[in-house]
């Protein structure tokens, strides 16, 4: 029975997982992992405002054939359920034109200067002369012959176009931009439709998600294959103990299941990314297994009371407990997960494995004695490297730099953004508690920045509308109409103005935004939001209700804040490590400390030589710290260094195979983790093997 305890525990935990898994919530929202609640809400607002739901297709040429082809494409696109709207012409839609007609007198700026008879006559005379002498046809505005109302509603081009290329079609999708599966489906459908068209350029912001995800997926597949081959080679051809391998995998499986169940109870949801990294960190516990194995502790009956493994575990565990207090979801969830899984793994390897009858391996180098390095020199070198890194390292807070560089799409996005978006404007999202207050906020901005664009151009606040209505009602249009009728006849007009300023008294304040306005108001968490465009020439004074739509800047702010917290907690962890190492080694503290400081300082030194440090480097440094503590403690406490060295060698090779291969990734985020782990592992190897072996 005890021989099968490891398997039984795994089956028990699997059973618990199957029973309770419906209650455990898994989240796929990666944004919430890194960013503040404010930023996550901001992304939700952006998503609802549908600012990145456009697909642009440009056809080469400015002729009828190009336009015809775009109209054919539009027809095909309209058949797709994911496409909600397709536009080629920039002219207002029928709904919008009807809206303008209905609200014309309220939307237009009304000059309520009282006009004398002479002034009316003069203006009509000018209109008449223009009409008679004009060589281009311009219909007479019989609704407002005196030009009392001024409004600019017409676009200056009929079609959207890219200069020196051709016309552009704009399609709007109704898919949720965070749904990778739906994004991919639409991407494939679009490519199928466009495959039969030539001289076409297509771009949509969601293409980045699809293409980059696909690239990263292939990248990960490549890395997983390499890691699997390396691990198989390590276990099957070097270690050759299949029983140890199988039970090691089962124990790690149990640790992961235990951590998932515990986190399921303690956390409202477990992020998938936390799960993935958590499993990777759990594999660090293989250190304990190798240490027990090479020292022959599995022959012990009952719980293995081995000081160095215990101190190694308790220090790593303590570091993760400290990190679980960081107010960044990725770190506190991951730290909690890792602390629990490492605890379970430690208990399993220290107790259950003693019933498995695993024999100590024969080590050829048993008769060698190892001369230690001088820890003071290593610590001093580490401090020098820290000093160099501190003065040369620069932090890269731009998250875009962590992603795969999709040159083709970046080039297309530049072309389309330059031609289509209003490049001379700064995009700002404004918010308020009610729609009315939001529109009033827009109107306040309009007085400061008259060329502002936004929903407020077409929808007035109740307050402004009533004010305009009052202005209209106070003006004597009846008198004006009488003068117009008399004077127009004298000038030569033939009954042209019978409908002038008609229905002006029936106007009322009932303005409801319509879809085609281009701007919209959305509600998110008891607040209303809308996008406004303010010309770049203005230096906008921002307040709490205004957020510039500069995603990189917003994310960078969050990343800077996160980095400060992480660095603070890293110092706290180092203090904790110092205390534990002091308790363990007293005057010899420099020796285990060298195992912690040297790899980290070497990594930082190399990062400062090759580039800038990013948040994924910091993340990997925490993993490296967790690994190196164990080795420092083992190497210091061990009385049989050859076995300890052997155990560390296998554990390091496992880590290198699991994490180090990430250095081969094209994705900067993954490459950064791989870079830190590879350099760190090499540094630990230097400490272990950079010493003399002497035969006894």
């Amino acid at each position, binding site marked *: 029975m005890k021989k099968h305890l490891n398997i039984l525990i795994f089956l028990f935990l699997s059973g618990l997982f199957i029973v309770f898994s419906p209650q455990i919530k898994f989240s796929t929202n990666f944004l919430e992992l890194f960013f503040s609640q404010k930023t996550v809400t901001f992304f939700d607002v952006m998503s609802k405002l549908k600012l990145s739901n456009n697909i642009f297709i440009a056809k080469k040429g400015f*002729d009828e054939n190009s336009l015809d082809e775009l109209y054919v494409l539009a027809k095909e696109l309209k058949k797709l359920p994911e496409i909600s709207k397709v536009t080629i012409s920039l002219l207002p839609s029928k709904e919008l034109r009807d809206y303008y007609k209905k609200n014309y007198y309220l939307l237009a700026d009304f000059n309520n200067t009282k006009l004398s008879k002479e002034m009316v006559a003069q203006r009509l005379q000018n209109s008449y002369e223009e009409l008679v002498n004009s060589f281009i*046809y311009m219909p007479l505005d019989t609704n407002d012959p005196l030009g009392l109302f001024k409004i600019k509603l017409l676009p200056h081009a009929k079609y959207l176009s890219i200069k020196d290329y051709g016309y552009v079609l704009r399609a709007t999708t109704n898919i949720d931009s965070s749904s990778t599966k739906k994004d991919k489906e639409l991407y494939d459908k679009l490519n199928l439709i466009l495959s039969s068209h030539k001289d076409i350029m297509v771009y949509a912001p969601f293409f980045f998600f699809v293409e980059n995800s696909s690239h990263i997926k292939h990248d990960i597949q490549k890395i997983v294959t390499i890691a699997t081959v390396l691990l198989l080679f390590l276990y099957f051809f070097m270690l050759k103990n299949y029983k140890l391998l199988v039970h090691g995998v089962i124990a790690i499986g149990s640790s992961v299941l235990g951590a998932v169940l515990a986190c399921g109870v303690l956390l409202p949801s477990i992020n998938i990314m936390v799960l993935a990294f958590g499993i990777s960190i759990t594999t660090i516990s293989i250190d304990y297994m190798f240490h027990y194995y090479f020292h022959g502790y599995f022959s012990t009956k009952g719980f293995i009371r081995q000081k160095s493994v215990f101190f190694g575990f308790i220090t790593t565990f303590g570091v993760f407990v400290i990190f679980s207090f960081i107010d960044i979801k990725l770190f506190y969830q991951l730290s909690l997960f890792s602390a629990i899984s490492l605890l379970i793994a430690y208990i399993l390897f220290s107790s259950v494995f003693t019933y498995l009858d695993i024999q100590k391996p024969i080590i050829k180098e048993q008769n060698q004695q190892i001369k230690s390095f001088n820890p003071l020199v290593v610590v001093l070198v580490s401090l020098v490297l820290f000093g160099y890194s501190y003065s040369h390292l620069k932090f890269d807070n731009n998250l875009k730099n962590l992603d795969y560089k999709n040159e083709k799409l970046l080039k297309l996005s530049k072309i389309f953004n330059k031609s289509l978006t209003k490049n001379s404007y700064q995009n700002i999202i404004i918010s308020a508690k009610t729609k009315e207050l939001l529109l009033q906020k827009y109107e306040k901005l309009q007085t400061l920045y008259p060329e502002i664009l936004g929903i407020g151009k077409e929808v007035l606040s109740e307050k402004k509308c009533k004010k305009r209505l009052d202005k209209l009602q106070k003006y004597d249009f009846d008198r004006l109409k009488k003068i117009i009728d008399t004077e127009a006849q004298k000038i030569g007009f033939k009954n042209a103005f019978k409908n002038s300023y008609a229905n002006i008294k029936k106007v009322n304040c009932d303005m409801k935004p319509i879809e085609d306005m281009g701007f919209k108001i959305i509600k998110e968490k008891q607040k209303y939001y809308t996008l406004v465009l303010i010309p770049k020439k203005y230096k906008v004074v921002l307040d709490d209700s205004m957020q510039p739509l500069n995603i990189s800047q917003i994310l960078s702010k969050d990343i800077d804040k996160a980095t400060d917290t992480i660095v603070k907690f890293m110092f706290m962890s180092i203090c904790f490590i110092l205390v534990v190492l002091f308790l363990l080694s007293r005057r010899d503290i420099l020796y285990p400390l060298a195992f912690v400081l040297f790899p980290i300082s070497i990594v930082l030194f190399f990062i400062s030589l090759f580039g800038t440090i990013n948040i994924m480097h910091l993340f990997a440094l925490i993993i490296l710290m967790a690994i190196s503590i164990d080795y420092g403690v083992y190497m210091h406490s061990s009385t049989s260094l050859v076995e300890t060295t052997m155990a560390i060698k296998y554990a390091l090779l496992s880590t290198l195979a699991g994490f180090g291969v990430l250095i081969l990734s094209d994705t900067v985020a993954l490459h950064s983790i791989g870079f830190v782990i590879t350099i760190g592992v090499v540094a630990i190897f230097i400490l272990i093997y950079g010493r003399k072996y002497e035969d006894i």
Partner: protein
Amino acid sequence: MRYILVLCLSVMLFGASSYDFNEYKFVSAAAATFKQSGNISFDNSKTIITYSQPKYKQIIDDGTDVTITGKSGKTYKLKGKALFYTKLFIDVMRRLGDIKYLKKSRDFLLVKKENIYIVEFKNEIKDQVLKAEVEAKNSKVKSFKLFMKNGDTLEIIKR
């Protein structure tokens, strides 16, 4: 050799078109008709209307901007309402003046009565233009007349 030259010129001119016209503009508000004469030429990227009578004026629509040049050579760019309407009517003139465009245009509904095509506009032009009548002979447009909603008419007769 001469045939080759003709062929080359035809190839070069393919896609470009030009015709002289008389324009009759009836303004209902003034109950008067005004006549102008000129030439319209267009290729894939540009339309040029040159009025010779009663005054010289050249209107060039390059797809983005519309510029007007007077006899003195002074040029100015159209803006706002003037730009919008000029572009709209240049576009309509191009389409109605060519039977090929007329027949395949997605913006019109066509009804043929003997030599006359009655054109009903489908899009935003409908707000301004009630209908158009195009007279064609042997698949060639001879003249067309736009009937505005305000009672104005604009007739182009090819010369």
